[in-house]
Structures are given as C-alpha cells and as structure tokens.
C-alpha cells in the first residue's frame, strides 16, 4: 500500500547561520494492508521525523513515498500538491501525534462526531460509534461533553488515538501512541489498533515499548541499521548513538 523509497530529510536552519541538521537518510521499506510496521531506535535518530515526512508535516529533501489510493491510483506523498495531501488526510490517511492537539472549545464527543460526519457518516451512527469507542478506552461518560483541555494526560492521549482510529483510515501513522498510558489503557488502545489492523489498515508506528512492539508489529525496522530486524531482537547498544542521545 505504501512504498518508502530512499527517503531523506535534512533541516536547514537559516536563523542559526544556515546550520544543516540531518533528520534521517535514505530510508526504504514497503508496508502492505493489514500490516503494522514498527520503527524503533533511540531518541533523536529520526523516527518521528520519518513519520512526519510521510504525513508531509515535514517536506522530504529526497526520495519518494508512493502511496496507492483507495481508487487504485498512485501518488508520491513526498512531492504531491498540498491540496491532494489535505484530501488524503481527510479521507484515507490518519495520524496519531505524540502530543495531543485538537481544535479548542470543542467537546470530546463533538470532535469524534465531526471526524466521522466529515467523511460522510450519518450523525446518529457517528454518535453511536463515538460512544462505543470512548467506552472501549475507558473514558467516563461524564467527560464526553467536556472540553479535552480539562482531561488528564492519559485521557487526552486516549482521545487522540480514538480520534484517528474512529475514521478507519486506510493508512495510519502512529507516533508513540502508547507512551504516556498506564497498563490498562495500553491494553484498551492495543486492542483497538489490532481490530483496525484486522480490517485492512496499514500502519507505520514509532514505538519504544517492547510489549507494544511484540503485541502489534508484523515487522520491525531499526533506524540505526536502516534494516529490518527480528521483532523481539534487542539491538546491541551503539556507543556513538548513546553519546548523541545524551547530548540531546
């Protein structure tokens, strides 16, 4: 469904004397429907930058991201027109960010209903599905009509995940979706992700959590070696990378 080919990202910071910062370099992999492709590696190695480059929040500096749309046509997300990207985001591609961000002053229920109705789901059905998903991730009914700004960190993150999953995207990008969740919430969220995967959604996810990787992932890609590694494999510690991490 998606083929990442030699994708690279370099940041040029003009306001810091044109400093060049390498995000990641020449990354290639393919992801099929119903497959969860886990990206792992230490902090600062470019995992989130890679996801953002696929979602086009970052503009890649090299390579291609060939995505096969629902109608069978192919599009290079790395160079597509912004209007095409907006359309795909509104219809086919979902993204769970590391940090929760939604339109302010809109209740949790309205966020979820609006995400569905904008994709043509009937309002009544959208409400029923929103109630079902909110219950599944343990968000209490008394919070459903509240603004998410008043939620705890874990509740916000669960809502963030539900907001992306409820639209049943064909491609879902997950940036550390379970990082700030307790064990029970993690279990709820992983169950929803597995359900969606079974329905055919292709997923690319950044994970630090070994349990999540082992439960969810079909393939594991290591950013340091730029290659596939066994899912349960514990990579040897790279001294250079550790120093970089400490510096960050």
């Amino acid at each position, binding site marked *: 469904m998606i083929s990442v080919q030699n994708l690279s990202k370099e940041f040029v910071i003009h*306001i810091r004397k044109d400093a060049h910062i390498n995000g990641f370099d020449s990354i290639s992999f393919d992801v099929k429907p119903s497959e969860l492709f886990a990206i792992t590696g230490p902090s600062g190695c470019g995992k989130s930058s890679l996801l953002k480059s696929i979602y086009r*929040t*970052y*503009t890649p500096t090299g390579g291609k991201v060939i995505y096969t749309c629902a109608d069978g046509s192919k599009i290079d997300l790395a160079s597509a027109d*912004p*209007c095409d990207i*907006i359309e795909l985001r509104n219809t086919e591609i979902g993204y769970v960010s590391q940090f929760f961000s939604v339109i*302010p002053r809109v209740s949790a229920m309205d966020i979820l209903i609006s995400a569905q109705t904008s994709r043509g789901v009937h309002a009544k059905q959208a409400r029923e599905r929103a109630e079902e998903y909110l219950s599944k991730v343990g968000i209490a009914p008394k919070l459903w009509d509240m603004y998410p700004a008043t939620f705890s960190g874990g509740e916000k993150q669960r809502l963030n995940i539900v907001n992306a999953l409820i639209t049943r995207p064909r491609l879902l990008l997950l940036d550390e979706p379970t990082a700030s969740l307790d064990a029970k919430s993690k279990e709820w969220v992983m169950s929803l992700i597995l359900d969606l995967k079974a329905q055919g959604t292709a997923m690319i996810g950044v994970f630090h959590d070994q349990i999540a990787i082992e439960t969810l992932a079909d393939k594991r890609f290591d950013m340091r070696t730029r290659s596939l590694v066994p899912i349960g494999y514990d990579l040897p510690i790279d001294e250079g990378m550790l120093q970089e991490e400490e510096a960050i």
Partner: protein
Amino acid sequence: MKNRTPVLEGSHITVRFGDGCPYCREHTELEKGRCPVCRTIWAVRDVSFRLYEGEILGIVGESGSGKSTLLKTLYFDQPATSGDCRIARYHDGQKNIFDTSSQQKRYLRNHLMGMVYQNPILGLRMKISAGANVAEKLIAAGNRNAGSMIGRTEELLQHVEISLDRLRDQPRYFSGGMQQRVQISKATANNPPILFLDEVTTGLDLSVQAKVLDLIRSIQKELGIAMMIVSHDLSVIRMMSDRTMVMLGGRVVEEGLTDQIMEDPMHAYTQTLVNSLL
C-alpha cells in the same frame, strides 16, 4: 487525484504605489517593498494563488508585507496595477474580474464575495441600525421584499448571537466583538462562495477573539464558504487554515500546508516568524 477547479484564482497580481523605475522593476527583493531609488512602494508583487471550495487559506506576514492590500485588491477596495483574477462562478472563470466595469464589480461584491475588515468602521455604517446594515447588503443583491428581508436579517443576527432586542441599535453602541459579529453576518448575508477576513480578531480580548474565531469556523463548516484569512497572529492561522501563504515585502516567500509551515518552515523569514511564537 481528482482535478479541482479553484473558486478564486489570482495570477501575477501586482499593486504598486508610484511609477517604478528601471532599478525596482529589475530588483524584486526590495526591503519592505520600497524602492530605494524612486521610493515607489511595491505593496503586492507578482502574487499568484488558488483558493478551492470550502478551504481556508491563511496569509501571514509582518505589518506592511502586503497581505491586507492583497485582500483589498481582490475585494476591489484597491485597484490592481497588473495581474489577473478569476472566479469560477463568474463567466465560468473566463473573465478577469479586474477588467470589469464598476457595475460588475458591485455585482461581484454583493453576490460572490464578502469582506470582514479589521476595523468595523470600514465594514459597517455606524449610524444606522445593525439590522439595517445587514438588510443593506440584501437590498444590494436585489432583495426587495421587506418581509423576507426582516426574516433573513433576524436569522443572520441570531446566528451570530446578537440578541434581537439589539436589532434596532446602531453598531457604534456595540462592543468590538459584537461589531465583528455584525460584520460577519453582513458579509455572509447573500451566501457568497468567497469570504475575505482581514485581521478580524486583532484588538479583541482573548475570550471575544475565541468566540469570533469559533463563529467563523462554524459558518465555514456549515456553508462551505472558501475563505482567505489574513492575520499576523500565527496561532489564529494555525487554528483556522488548511494552507498558508507567507508574505514579505509584497511577495509570497513560502506557501504550503499550515502544519508544514509551522513545523518545517523553509524560508529564513518564516523560520524567524515561527520562532517568535510565544
């Protein structure tokens, strides 16, 4: 992907104050758009854009970057020096709206466009009632039935949460937020496909600002109006727009998805702007 037809398309729009000279005609990157030789101001220089149905296009830039002049030119408050602008619903996009008669321009302003100004004095007549302000726009679009006009005016003002017992009050007695809401109802009275918003929340306090922005979002969602919103406040642009153009010295220096502009700005000026966010 499908072929989209823009509801509004501008090509190479230039607005110049002064005659220009060989130096400034050749050099496009003038500081603040001002020619150091002949003092001509290039307020808007060679700007092209496309606005699609139901989208919000944000325009950011510092004071004097030309963003408000661009909107005023599109709304015929300011004549363009050169360039081309077409509206899909006007002669099927075959006619440059800058080359039309003043009568046709009036038609376009009343039927196909709306404008909400930063300063309500520019958009409202302060000495006639709020209801008459809205009705004036309906009359300009050819409405002559008093009963339907009163009904529509009440509906529009209620929609922007102006209570009907203020219908006969003059806008000069309203708060800034209320004046902006009356302006919004006037600008959208004839369901135009295009709405221009020029710094609509500047000068309002935070809670009123939030209310006005929420109202604009709900109107956009409900009516599917394509909007161009000018602001120097990046938070407003981040909340409201799908795509963003960054202007500097009359030129567009960067454009793209709003999240890309905010998180991965390419141009030095955009990087400075984003880094100035509190």
